[in-house]
């Protein structure tokens, strides 16, 4: 025991970071970066939610004039951008992924801790950048899909769309850094013995999402860059009169945009496959099939983009090809749904709040998935596309299938992160409120869409039978709000007064439950050796005491053999400095001062030099 205590003390000293605010600004600890992401994305989730409720209030009755047409356009555009790029992706990857991946893999940090901090600061700056446009009254207003020529300078002469282009490129830098970091971490920093087939499904999901981001984002960045060049430098990528193509925008956008949907929900699958075994005390049914399905869903997701464009007049052969691909993507999804259900059914289920959210998630995913399959039917797709039917469909997927697991995950890992237990009864009430609220919010949208209500309308006439459904949706929106406030209230109260949490309150199967709650800066005093996909359940084995320096094991990508010990970098001010310099580049670009942008690029280079002047020594 004395040995273990002395080791913990020594590691505490080695892994300690600066206290106070300065410590948060220079931190490279994946847990603190994860928490920064968590708080930042929560704030942005609030902003996106307020935008949604403003829209719902406007639509509660026919011919309402609460907000102006332009304000409404800004609201739905910024709502979409916020929820996708500034809430769900950074919440699932930035917050959950960063905090949990090293703990689940048996590592002490991410592979590139400073790059991790950099991705957070760039993300935060891009969020401020986007919301500055809203404060200045020039927020993006052509929809998150931003179709040209509506988004071209001729039809949108303000700087609204310039903010759109630059904010997405800006935000894309952060996501790319996160994705690269995740891939290397998952491939190289797994605990010794954690061969690919013993990797937890959470890590498979994060790996799939990271590969998705890495390969999908370039298409969006190119697209938005082309648009920026068209708008600001008079180029003609999308200018039909000069030989450009309006559909090129849509192709490049959806080549990113559809994989994006899977990037949003695959991490949620990872959260679900973490919670289900813990609350059923049963290993996941058909584990290898589910692992392959998680990867496959993202892979096939790259081949279905044109089903967003069925009404654009493409040749029938093209339509049919993409319909077939869209049909194929269903199979990996149904495999997972039945694997989750069979695990819950054949295990010993305890429906605590996290599992309730996962059950809700499964139902939402099935409803949204089934309406999604309907889009394989091209004529039906062309009937309902751009109506509220589609709005209903993707909110069942995005709110139900991506956000429900986020909420479930908040409860599930709350004891691990805070060292306190949440309150169970209010937790369950928050689930039922959110479940009832979101169904009331989104289900009538199916009906009103079939009744002919189109999307992105700031108002609608009475007499078409749409008003009662819209009113119900608005009520559902506020019920959902009440549930979310109860959830957050529960977490705040529990953080202050909750019962102290043991290291492993749920008897979970993965490695994060083997360390104290909250985990120390070095995570694992002894680097565990892993012999199964549920190392906390199956024969816990010894490990590797690594307590002499700021060190981390490196293993081989496929079979998890120990190949090296790497010295990890310490906390650093350079990530935030570099992020600041990058922000200046974007500010200069949006105000059209290209020379200034060049100077700011030089500043970025200097910051990179500073960064590399403080390299950790070569690995031993």
């Amino acid at each position: 025991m004395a040995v273990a205590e002395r080791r913990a003390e020594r590691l505490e000293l080695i892994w300690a970071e600066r206290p106070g605010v300065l410590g948060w600004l220079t931190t490279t600890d994946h847990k603190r970066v994860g928490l920064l992401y968590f708080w930042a994305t929560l704030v942005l989730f609030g902003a996106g939610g307020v935008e949604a409720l403003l829209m719902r209030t406007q639509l509660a009755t026919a011919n309402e004039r609460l907000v102006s047409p332009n304000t409404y356009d800004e609201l739905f555009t910024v709502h979409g951008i916020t929820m996708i790029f500034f809430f769900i992706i950074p919440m699932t990857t930035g917050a959950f992924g960063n905090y949990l991946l090293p703990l689940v893999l048996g590592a002490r940090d991410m592979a590139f801790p400073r790059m991790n901090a950099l991705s957070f600061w760039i993300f935060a700056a891009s969020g401020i950048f986007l919301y500055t446009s809203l404060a200045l009254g020039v927020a993006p207003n052509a929809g998150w899909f931003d179709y040209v020529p509506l988004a071209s300078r001729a039809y949108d002469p303000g700087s609204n769309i310039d903010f759109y282009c630059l904010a997405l490129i800006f935000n894309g830098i952060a996501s790319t850094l996160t994705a690269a970091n995740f891939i290397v971490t998952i491939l190289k920093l797994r605990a010794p013995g954690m061969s690919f087939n013993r990797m937890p499904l959470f890590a498979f999901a994060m790996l799939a999402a990271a590969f998705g981001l890495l390969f999908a984002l370039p298409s969006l960045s190119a697209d938005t860059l082309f648009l920026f060049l068209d708008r600001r430098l008079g180029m003609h990528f999308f200018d039909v009169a000069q030989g450009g193509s309006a559909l090129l925008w849509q192709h490049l956008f959806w080549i990113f945009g559809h994989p994006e949907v899977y990037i949003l929900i695959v991490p949620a699958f990872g959260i679900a496959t973490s919670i289900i075994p813990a609350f059923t005390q049963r290993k996941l049914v058909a584990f290898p099939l589910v692992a392959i399905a998680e990867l496959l869903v993202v892979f096939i997701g790259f081949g279905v983009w044109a089903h967003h464009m069925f009404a654009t007049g493409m040749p029938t052969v093209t339509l049919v090809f993409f319909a077939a691909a869209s049909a194929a993507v269903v199979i990996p999804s149904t495999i997972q749904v039945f694997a989750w259900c069979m695990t819950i059914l054949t295990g010993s289920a305890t429906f605590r709040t996290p599992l309730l959210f996962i059950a809700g998630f499964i139902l939402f995913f099935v409803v949204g998935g089934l309406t999604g399959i309907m889009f394989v039917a091209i004529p039906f797709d062309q009937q309902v596309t751009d109506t509220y039917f589609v709005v209903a469909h993707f909110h069942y997927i995005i709110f139900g299938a991506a956000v429900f697991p986020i909420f479930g995950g908040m409860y599930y890992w709350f004891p691990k992160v805070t060292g306190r237990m949440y309150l169970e009864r209010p937790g369950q009430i928050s689930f039922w409120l959110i479940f009832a609220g979101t169904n009331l919010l989104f289900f009538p949208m199916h009906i009103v869409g079939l009744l002919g209500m189109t999307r992105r309308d700031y108002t609608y006439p009475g007499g078409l039978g749409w008003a009662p459904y819209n009113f119900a949706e608005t009520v559902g929106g506020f019920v959902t709000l009440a549930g979310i406030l109860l959830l957050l209230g529960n977490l705040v109260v529990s953080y202050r007064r909750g019962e102290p949490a043991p290291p492993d309150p749920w008897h979970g199967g993965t490695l994060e439950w083997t360390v104290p709650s909250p985990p120390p800066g070095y995570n694992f005093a002894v680097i565990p050796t892993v012999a199964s996909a549920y190392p906390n359940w199956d024969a816990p084995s010894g490990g590797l005491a690594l307590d002499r320096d700021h060190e981390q094991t490196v293993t081989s990508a496929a079979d998890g053999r120990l190949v090296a010990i790497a010295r990890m970098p310490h906390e650093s001010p350079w990530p935030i400095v570099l992020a600041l310099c990058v922000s200046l580049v974007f500010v200069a670009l949006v105000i059209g001062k290209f020379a200034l942008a060049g100077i700011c690029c030089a500043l970025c280079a200097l910051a990179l030099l500073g960064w590399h002047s403080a390299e950790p020594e070569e690995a031993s």
Partner: protein
Amino acid sequence: MPRARLVTPLVFVLALAGCGTQQNALAPESHPARDIASLWWWMLGAAVLGVGLIAGLLLLAWIRRGRRGIGRDTLGPKPGERASTAVVLGLGVAMPLALIAALFVISDMFVIRTTQAPAATRTTMTVQVIGHQWYWEVRYPGTPAVTADEIHIPVRTPVVLQATTDDVIHSVWVPRLNRKIDTIPGQRNEILLEADAAGDYRGQCAEFCGLQHAHMAMIVVAEPRAAFRRWLAANAKPARTVSTALAHRGEQLFMDGACQSCHTIRGTSATGTAGPDLTHVASRATLAAVTIRNDPRSLAEWIRDPQHVKPGNKMPDLPLTSAQVNALVAYLDALR
């Protein structure tokens, strides 16, 4: 084609019945829209079964909660694994594969054909619909007829609808008659337009096209062939000459003022193209893309303050006296 036998009970269950509404995709009035609606009812039936299956599994798990499951084993191999995997492969792979293959064949090989633009051998009738921010220009090739926001077609006649745009992307959608088609710059898209019964069918722009996307509707007027021919002949003519003094004053104002720089009235000196053709504006039921009724009072309100009625639309608020507005209304109201 699967016909909607399921329709009646399901309408009842979901209270989706909407015969009184004018833009309801589930109240089809043409064979393509009916095929698509049947497709929907069949898919809905299958989807309800699918949700029921999953909800049933979860409910069963909830009823059995807390009990020791067959697999309450966190150590070693997973009990019941083989049977569970068989369920996953059977219900998660084989069943969806079969169902989706059937859906694919029916919808993407058969229904898609019955709803696309008819071959040139099947019809001689073409209507050109041109999207503008924010109204529809409607032309009848082979005749000088031009109108706005109202597409007249003969009933029970397959019509090729050619959709193009003058500015941004719009989407022509009349849900009771057929699926929608986008108007893409530099492209001429076609779709079948056909109505089985005479009547007015409301449609709307379905692709976000800017500030007044919400007020960019249209009416398809399907009428008996003889009535349609009369309408087309009347609309092909130039504008009639007006008789009253007030209307004359209005005409004068129109031709000397700002109006003619944006609007065309065939047979006069007004040849603007920024706004809708007004040659027979009084024969239309609505104004400003089905935003307001076309009666003298609404028309006066529109001319006086178009930016209040439809904020952001391209028609400016003009400094007109009441007398001038009245004269303009008298003139336009005479253009039958």
